């Protein structure tokens, strides 16, 4: 088996985690795809530097973090919050998700889906329609016979409740070692 074929296994194993990490910072989907590509190619070129006794995910996020910081200097509008501290914080969050039961990233997100299921009806409905069905805000508000402002509020509160649920499930207050060592070590 050749090196690039082995690397494809790593790409597939880490694609979803990396996408979630990038999309937390980069709003524009095509820009996130470009950073995804650049991150993976940098990882490929620098595989010789990778310490094989360590997990691959944090190392990959370290590369992604540096790539995002470089991109942000040129394309600030595509990015939300993006500095070393924020990226380290998000990297630590990803690590707690990665430590959840399950083989794949999707399976590790079962806890979030469970949180959605437990939302009060009014919040669960708008979250489901907003994310699962991509229903536009206008038609969703009309269907539910609520104002746009109420819809916005419900989405906002629904997400706040999910955040609180995840904090409990994932024990985010007991954050493991973050990305700083990776950022500083490279």
């Amino acid at each position, binding site marked *: 088996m050749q090196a690039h074929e082995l690397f494809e*296994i790593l*790409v597939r194993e880490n694609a979803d985690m990396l996408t979630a990490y990038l999309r937390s910072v980069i709003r524009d989907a095509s820009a996130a795809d470009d950073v995804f590509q650049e991150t993976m190619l940098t990882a490929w070129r620098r*595989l010789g530097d990778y310490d094989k006794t360590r997990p691959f995910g944090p190392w990959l996020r370290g590369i992604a973090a540096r790539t995002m910081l470089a991109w942000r200097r040129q394309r600030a509008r595509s990015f939300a919050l993006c500095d070393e501290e924020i990226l380290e914080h998000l990297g630590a969050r990803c690590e707690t998700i990665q430590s959840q039961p399950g*083989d794949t990233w999707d399976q590790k997100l079962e806890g979030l889906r469970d949180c959605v299921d437990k939302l009060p009806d009014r919040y669960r409905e708008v979250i489901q329609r907003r994310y699962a069905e991509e229903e536009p805000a206008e038609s969703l508000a009309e269907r539910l016979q609520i104002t746009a402002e109420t819809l916005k509020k419900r*989405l*906002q509160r629904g*997400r706040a409740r*999910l*955040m609180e649920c995840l904090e409990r499930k994932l024990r985010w207050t007991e954050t493991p070692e973050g990305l700083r060592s990776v950022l500083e070590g490279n």
Partner: protein
Amino acid sequence: MSTTPPTTSDDEPLPGERPQIDAAVADFVDRGIPIDEASLDHAGRLRAADGLLVHSLLEQSLRTDVVARERRIVRVCAAVEKLAAEVAVPPPVIPRRRRWLTPLVVAASLVIAAAFLRVPFNPSRQTSLAAVTATLKAAEAGTDRKYLVTTELRTAAGEDKSIQADLWVHGNSRYVLRQDGALGDFLMGSDGVEYWVTPSIGPIFVGKTPGLLEQLVLGDARLATPFLQLTSILDRMAQRYELSLLPEEDLPAAESSAKIRCTHVLARRRGDVDPLNPETIELWTARQSGIAQRMILSWPLADDDSGLRAVTLNLRPVESSISEEWYGHRAHHAPDRDIIERTPEAQP
């Protein structure tokens, strides 16, 4: 009298809730309005980051976009393959032998064969078929043996290459195959219960089905399976090859400078047998002990042809006593590596 609508418990503020920050995040993700970072304190920035992460995770978990995911992966893999081709010899094209017949798969197939390579040689039945069929029946829990597996191939650029791997076998069910790769050692093996693949980096794959993991890692599962199951090379020799006994030969002993007298069997592929199988297989077994000393599988190539040419197993001394744990995957990777268990049901 208050004009505020009555609240329910659903509307009670949550611990740590920061409505203004959550609203800013909502404006950003739902309307594209930039977040005013200057207005956020330290805790507020982290709260906003969490809000953005939750938004990202919701998009991913509630609306899995398989097409976009695959497009991203394919784009990366194509670029990596191109980069790899720029710095390395192109992978060999193996005409008529299909992609699955990679050196590693062939070597893996020999794992099973090597497990059976104990020939209780019977001088009174000194025929080639007797030697091979007796080998098949003589699968027994024995001592650890080590073989050096050498794979010879010709690249599309016409360059002859040789790849080596170490193979440890014990009885008919335990084995470890270790091959150096560009990224470090690549190992596969079985302790008789679990089958496992340990790439140099990335997760460890473990399963209970022979061949399943090799399929996962090496691809093209359907075709790889026959060689990786208990349909061994030796079984093929007996069933699909014309066997002949060649003159005995003296081969160097693995553990000393002495010579060992060996029975030498030559197997030629029958005309109706799939050309995927080697054209010839040669087997040398020690006349006294019955232990296989050498095995060579050959696929003759035309001058302008590229692909696999030969795989050779040579018995080597075992460095020291080998524990049972050696045949389990945990002996070959750091304890914190991710382990993925694969079952037939989990296969796509």
